[in-house]
């Protein structure tokens, strides 16, 4: 009985201490600026891919490709940088959610790009939800 209670306490502590550090907030670019999200903290940004902002580096046959685009909620723009092939679902003017963290200079390094692929497109709310995973 004591061992069982002990195990329950250990697991409870494990859960309590791991909940906060693994909480990922969905924010719009405006909310991210207002809250002053610390550099390096994982967050998700939801917004529209600004028209004309999506660019690849010239195709490299020697390593992974870099891409960048600007995600916007109409008020605040954030420059998003990433590496790898971006999902085919991502297009200019459409909604997207990026997961990653801000660098000290205010650019956003994406570890995961999640494009919205709703059949009937509606502008994402603050932190619209991922509909399609691109990477683990």
């Amino acid at each position, binding site marked *: 009985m004591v061992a069982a209670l002990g195990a329950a306490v250990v*697991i409870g502590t*494990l*859960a309590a201490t791991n909940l906060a*550090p693994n909480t990922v907030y969905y924010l719009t670019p405006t909310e991210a600026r207002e809250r002053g999200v610390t550099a390096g903290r994982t967050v998700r940004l939801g917004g529209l891919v600004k028209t004309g902002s999506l660019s690849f580096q010239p195709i490299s046959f020697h390593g992974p490709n870099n891409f960048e685009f600007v995600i916007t909620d109409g008020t605040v723009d954030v420059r998003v940088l990433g590496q790898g092939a*971006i999902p085919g679902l991502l297009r200019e003017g459409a909604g997207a959610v990026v997961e990653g963290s801000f660098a000290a200079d205010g650019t956003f390094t994406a570890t995961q790009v999640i494009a919205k692929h709703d059949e009937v497109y509606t502008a994402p709310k603050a932190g619209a939800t991922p509909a*399609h995973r691109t990477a683990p």
Partner: protein
Amino acid sequence: MSAGDLGAAALRAALFLSLWGTGAAIYAAWRRDARALSSARVAAGIGFGLVVIAAFSMMFALATHDFSILYVAENNARETPTFYSIISLWAALEGSILLWTAILAGATAFIAFRGTVAIPRLATTALAVMFAMLTFFLLLITTPAADPFARLAVAPDNGSGPNALLQNHPLMALHPPLLYLGYVLTSVPFAYAIASLILGEGGDRWLVATRRFALISWALLGVGIVAGAWWSYAVLGWGGYWAWDPVENAAIMPWLTSTAYLHSVMVEEKRSLLRTWNLALVVATFALTILGTFLTRSGVVNSVHSFSLSAIGPLLLGYLVAILVLSVGLLLWRSARLRDAGPIGAPLSREAIFLFQNVLFMAATLTVLLGTLYPLVAEAISGAQLSIGGPYFDRVEIPVALALLFLMGVGPQLPWHGASRATLERQFTAPIVAAAIGAVAALVTGTTALAAVLTYALGAFVIATVVQEFARGVRARRTLHGEGGLAAFSNLFRRNGRRYGGYVVHLGIVLVALAVATSQARTVDAERTLAPGDSLEIAGYTVRLDALRPVSEPQRDSIVADLAITGNGASAQLRPALVQYPNSTAAVGSPGIGAGLRDDVYTILAAYDQRTFSWATIRTRVIPGVSWLWLGGAVVGIGAIIAALPPPRRRVVRMPVAEVAVSAK
């Protein structure tokens, strides 16, 4: 009369019969009225037939593209192949609830005809509970909230077709029905438990009557979850099989409580302990399946599984609350009659390990529940939108899983009531040696992450205990019954299927654990842009792009990359593709997978030159051991079948009929 009219009429008639059956079963249980019982039986049988007719009507409407039905127009197109048309019965909300209702009606009919013969009063009360639940679901699908046969005023020329992800892989035929069967069959033990509480029977009859149902629903749920992981792996194109998605969590939680129940139930059978606890586990399992349905079907959480928002959410939530209030109320009311026969004994006894195991399973369930519901609660309280990242679940659940793996080896080796020092030495010497060998094997094969090494060590520990049990069982049968080795081995399963089938299940779980540990610890990624003829090297494999070509089919257009894989003594031709369905705004990826016992080579066409086809970006993952996961799921299923098969009847010496007639006088 069209198929749609037939289905709609059948559901309405079934609703009427279900209401009738509820009343008849209640009256039959209350007054012990045989005529009311047979009336309820007829209602259950015909009701089941009617719901099956409705389900087949929907399949027929889908296969014949009857777009005057809204569900067909939204989930089917003329170009959809017949196979995917038929399985679109469970491609969206209304059809899924129809399938759910059909299974529930089947279980109700089964209890009406089979259950009520063995223990009439308890089973008749359980039948009333089943009818009440069936009535709720029939109400759902005959009201606009989830009416599968709702009509369109003007039938369109063509429908929009099923969701692209749902028509891209045949596993869609397997994963949802298995999961639904598992979900719905948990309602049988629940109905008996509630009946037992209502009647105030302190005994364990409800549990004996539903043991097999509990086992079968547990197995279907488990195999359904593995099939879902496989579908996710083969379709979603991210090379993983589990993401702690809210709906995955919703499926695993009832499986966890149900696993706990299958073990603690043995403590009640052997020692008449944990009575209230077992009732609570059955209630929790059932409530978690409804919670899972609510989370999936109401749109409160978003995931790959969520259907569009619908009015069904509040109804399901109300149903869930009603079930919890009723169950907790009954448990409190009857708690005085559910006294245990004594305290749990020595810490090194089998019952103590079962108790410990139950605590761990509950902890796992509650922590998964916390991580799943926390975002909902946080949004309701503070308005902030957030999600709980996978690392939370990994850090909490992996230690729990390792502890459970350890107990899986220890439990079966300990006798009831307590173990002596000599017993401990006899039982654990070989398994501890095996654990050391397992750890070395992990390190030698390049698996060095701590959790993975521990998984190998504990996996070997469990395998050794199981082998030891089989060896002893065979030896005992050979000396006692003089059987040959092979006959003794198969007789272990036939005579004591529950125990030895259980060990096979344990082996399957070990296989799953090893697959997860290996694939998580040693997966390698590479992403390269290739011109036709170029190749990339990864983990000893060479991936060569041979060609990039468009392929056109009636229901879809694809761009296919022809890849040749060689290396590590294997070779394969893989064809990852980007597939464009007419109803989808963007192409969906279709991975090319070279599966092997050693490694899977998983390839994705990530991007390509749309004008001249002169290059393609290929993402490649080499995932060791992942196919053991599907294999492990199959072994669990086989073990469960062995455990669920009834043991052969003892040979009965029949008296001649005449003598029976005489002695009856």
